[in-house]
């Protein structure tokens, strides 16, 4: 009798636990309450686009016919679902970030988001002239003076103190005086390999659709290029 009561209680507990741990379905969430977070990185060796969709109750998984589609420069991106931090993430790989991203969130029983264009900063295409004599380090890239992004420059190496600065204007060229490069140990002679990284970072925060007022679409782009330069202090 006790064994039977134990099993009945155990089954009841499992059923109750199952009721409490129901996964959050996207169909339970209004489109207007969703937060679509897109982050894309392109460091020159391939681009990755990640999309997370969350709700007031936390992360959610697209279900019951809700579909997310991305296009970049008109070409569809192949999305796959992976788990990161126990939350579903929709991931796409591409050769590079080139062209704006278009997002479609198709929903059968709710408002769909169709042809939502998310502007992507233009490619960088960084080049550096060799350091000769006392000439400054001359950098050149594809200018984007009208872009709404932050341009960051980092010069790093095993023999110098990292140099980091934000460039105020994205005009396509910049010079760094050799005097600005601070060697870690001035007494050590010889060539010093440097890595010069230029990064464009852009964010977008918008309501997902009217009448929603809070942020429903968040995008973060980070495009960077790194070139190697040999410097002899």
């Amino acid at each position, binding site marked *: 009798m006790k064994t039977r009561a134990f099993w009945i209680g155990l089954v009841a507990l499992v059923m109750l636990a199952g009721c409490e741990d129901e996964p959050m379905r996207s169909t339970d969430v*209004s489109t*207007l*309450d969703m937060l679509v977070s897109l982050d894309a990185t392109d460091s020159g060796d391939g681009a990755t686009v990640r999309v997370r969709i969350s709700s007031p109750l936390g992360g959610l998984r697209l279900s019951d016919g809700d579909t997310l589609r991305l296009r970049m420069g008109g070409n569809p991106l192949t999305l796959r679902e992976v788990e990161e931090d126990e939350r579903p993430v929709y991931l796409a790989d591409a050769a590079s970030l080139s062209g704006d991203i278009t997002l479609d969130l198709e929903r059968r*029983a709710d*408002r769909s988001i169709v042809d939502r264009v998310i502007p992507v900063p233009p490619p960088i295409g960084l080049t550096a002239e060799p350091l000769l004599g006392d000439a400054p380090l001359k950098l050149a890239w594809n200018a984007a003076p009208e872009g709404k992004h932050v341009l960051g420059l980092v010069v790093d190496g095993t023999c110098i103190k990292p140099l980091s600065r934000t460039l105020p204007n994205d005009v396509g060229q910049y010079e760094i005086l050799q005097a600005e490069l601070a060697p870690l140990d001035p007494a050590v002679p010889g060539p010093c390999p440097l890595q010069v990284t230029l990064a464009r970072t852009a964010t977008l925060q918008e309501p997902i659709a009217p009448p*929603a007022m809070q942020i429903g679409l968040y995008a973060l782009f980070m495009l960077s290029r790194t070139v190697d330069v040999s410097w002899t202090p």
Partner: protein
Amino acid sequence: MRASATENRALRTHESRAARALLCLLAPLVLGAASPDEAAPSQPAEPLPELPPPSEPVAAPSAPAGNHSAPRERSTVEMARLDAGVMYVRGLKMLGFGTLARYQVLVGFIDLDVVRFPHERFGFEIHLNGGPIGFDENAQVEIGLSGAGLVAPFRWKGRAPGSFVLGVGGTFEYGRPVWLEPGYHGAPFGLARFRIFPTGTVGLQTAYRFVPITTNELALQEHDVELGVSTGLLQLGARVRVDEVRGGEPARLYRSIGGGVFAGLVVF
């Protein structure tokens, strides 16, 4: 002893005749002035026919018989009640524009009901309830005040007296459902109440109240069902509550179901 009883019976019969005569004299005054034709009997000199004496004098149910105090007759429609109870509510609530969220809460309440029937068929009731919602740091308060006009299309006596009462009224509520904003609303409601006393000491009562619409922006409907069993002044019972809210984007149905028990003092 037997002779004395016969004398008493004769005395009561004589008193009964005297009371009937008094009623005949006062009836026109109580029921209104009679028409001249009715007031002037065609044969005033003719004596009234004498009614046969009843075999046993019967006292009115509400009148005391001799020195014995009869138990107070329970009303089939009126009520005064003070009770307290708890209710567990579980269901769906709306977050944001239309996101489904599950919630559960324990509601405590105290009820005060007064139901009066100044007339045989028509009456009124006042209901007041209040109590906490939840017992943690997020506890809120639920308050309701309502009044209704009542009509009793059916009320009966006999071995199992009872009644069926219908009513309409208005209510002001705060905190129901707990998640709905704003947390107060006014609303009309309809009610039905069935009461029966199957024995001399036990009473059964069930009631249903329906709120079809409220002043909330979202469409809210409330259903309340109550079943109570009373003996003497004590009443125990159970209540079921269903709240249905429709609206949001996308339009959804957010239903909450609650169930609980109560105990209280009641006078019918």
